[in-house]
């Protein structure tokens, strides 16, 4: 069994499976739900197999075509990519189960091929070790995400999708320009090789500026977050879940990788401080805006803007506390993925239930949809950062670093962010208990959809207990030691 495991290139399977699945769904729309579920389940199994492979054999590097970098493209999986792949597979599986009930024809047969190709793009992105390949995966991901956002077809969704498309294309183009400069500066697009060859010359600063700007736009860092709330709020609920949980993290992942392996070793304190500042602004601005919203999905979308800020706040802290801070960031990213997707699925249930998502008109939700309300509450626990939850662990690690470094601004913003999050979460929960001014006839929400939301929310809480497993996994291959990646 061990021999079989270690011979099979699980990473490659993770990419080919959803590609094949998506194409099959396109060819046979009638059985797309079944094909979709089978594919996503197979992906989950493959990620587990990859986990065992990486845990036993160390870092996974696959030279495509046998050529090897710099001529060919390499796939690379260390602890960080493994965790991102795992969260993608898990959230993907639960969201897929949710989608089988959420979409009716004709949307359903359009949804599955788009969704599976998006999964393929995500997996290919997390496994890639080549910056031009990352550009192609970014484009695939972006186009799929836009098409999925526009799926529900209303004016809001279409405008949101258009704005999203413009932002994502601009980000990709800036990124590609950076790739061009790095290639011509150092003769390779492989991340490991670039990491070794890069020096502090003008072409590198230009590339850093371009790629940084492009990725920051795609990751919706304040003040480039303008496209996120309309897109995430007007997309169909399962799509919003995936967008907030996974897609927006993918561009952050690339930013983190480039920082750790290529640009970080050059000593860019100014950029790190800038990220920290913008991250703090994002937390405050996003949370305040979330508090002001009257519609649930917009509230959740602004909450995403705020939570993304926490990820960027780690940069100035990392100068001294390196690996500990990055562990916090990854913990926050994966907990947020679980919690936010749970929230959006819960919002989808409420939309299905009442036909609207106005917060003030939430009509006795706790009594009539207890599972959904519970899911929202549990997810809220993680978003606020209360123990026990994954969000608590992430924030606690950040807080610890900030305290030891006496970075009081970050400490204040961390506490303020949690308080504001508590405010908007409790605001929603408060309305869930009360009767609305104009009660309406409830429509039944499929059991599957309610429990899918609850499952993800429980996952966010469970992550709070899984630190002994998650933290060592994260550090397989030492992704956080700057410049440790070897070709």
């Amino acid at each position: 069994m061990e021999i079989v495991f270690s011979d099979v290139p699980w990473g490659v399977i993770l990419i080919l499976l959803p590609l094949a699945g998506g194409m099959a769904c396109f060819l046979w729309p009638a059985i797309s739900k079944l094909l979709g579920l089978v594919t996503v389940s197979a992906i989950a199994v493959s990620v587990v197999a990859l986990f065992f492979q990486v845990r036993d054999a160390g870092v996974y590097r696959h030279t495509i075509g046998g050529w090897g970098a710099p001529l060919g493209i390499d796939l690379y999986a260390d602890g960080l990519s493994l965790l991102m792949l795992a969260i993608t597979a898990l959230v993907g599986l639960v969201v897929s189960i949710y989608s089988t009930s959420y979409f009716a024809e004709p949307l359903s047969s359009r949804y599955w091929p788009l969704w599976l190709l998006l999964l393929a793009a995500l997996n290919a992105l997390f496994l890639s070790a080549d910056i031009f390949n990352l550009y192609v995966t970014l484009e695939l991901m972006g186009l799929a995400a836009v098409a999925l956002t526009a799926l529900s077809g209303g004016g809001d969704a279409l405008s949101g999708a258009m704005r999203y498309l413009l932002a994502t294309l601009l980000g990709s183009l800036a990124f590609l320009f950076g790739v061009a400069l790095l290639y011509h500066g150092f003769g390779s697009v492989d991340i490991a090789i670039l990491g070794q060859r890069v020096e502090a010359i003008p072409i590198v600063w230009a590339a850093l500026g371009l790629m940084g700007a492009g990725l920051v736009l795609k990751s919706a860092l304040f003040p480039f977050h303008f496209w996120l709330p309309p897109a995430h709020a007007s997309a169909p609920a399962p799509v919003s879940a995936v967008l907030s949980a996974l897609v927006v993290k993918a561009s952050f992942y690339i930013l983190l990788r480039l920082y750790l392996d290529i640009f970080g070793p050059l000593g860019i304190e100014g950029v790190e401080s800038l990220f920290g500042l913008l991250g703090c602004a994002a937390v405050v601005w996003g949370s305040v805006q979330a508090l002001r919203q009257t519609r649930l999905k917009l509230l959740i979308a602004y909450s995403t803007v705020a939570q993304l800020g926490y990820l960027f706040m780690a940069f100035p802290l990392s100068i001294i506390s390196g690996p500990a801070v990055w562990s916090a960031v990854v913990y926050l990213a994966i907990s947020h993925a679980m919690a936010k997707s749970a929230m959006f699925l819960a919002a989808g249930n409420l939309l299905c239930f009442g036909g609207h998502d106005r917060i003030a008109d939430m009509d006795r939700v706790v009594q009539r949809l207890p599972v959904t309300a519970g899911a929202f509450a549990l997810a809220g626990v993680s978003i606020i950062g209360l123990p026990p939850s994954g969000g608590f662990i992430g924030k606690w690690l950040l807080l610890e670093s900030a305290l030891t470094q006496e970075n009081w601004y970050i400490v204040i913003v961390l506490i303020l962010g949690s308080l504001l999050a508590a405010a908007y979460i409790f605001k929603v929960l408060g309305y869930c208990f009360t009767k609305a001014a104009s009660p309406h006839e409830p429509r039944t929400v499929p059991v599957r959809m309610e429990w899918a939301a609850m499952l993800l929310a429980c996952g966010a809480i469970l992550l709070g207990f899984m630190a002994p497993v998650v933290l060592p996994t994260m550090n397989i291959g030492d992704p956080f030691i700057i410049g440790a990646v070897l070709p």
Partner: protein
Amino acid sequence: MNMVFLYALVGVGLFCLGLHALIMHAHLLRKILAFNIMGGGVFLVLVALAKRTEEVAPDPVPHAMVITGIVVAVSATALALKLMLKVSEETGNAELPDERRE
């Protein structure tokens, strides 16, 4: 190798021209044109600098990258145009509502 850097600088110029038009103009079709011109600029930089090989044929890897880029660009353009038509159908004009200059 004056020619190489001439074309590379033209590429930079095209990128910035396109970026300006993208940000300043509200009409969606114009934004899509701007994207294509920006893309053309990046491709010019890629291919021009590939010609810095001495005497032998230019470096083929950037050429392959640009062909990939051209196909990606036409895919994105097709989707953007269809989306623009749908937005225009819904809202009556080919500009995004509440357009904010970013």
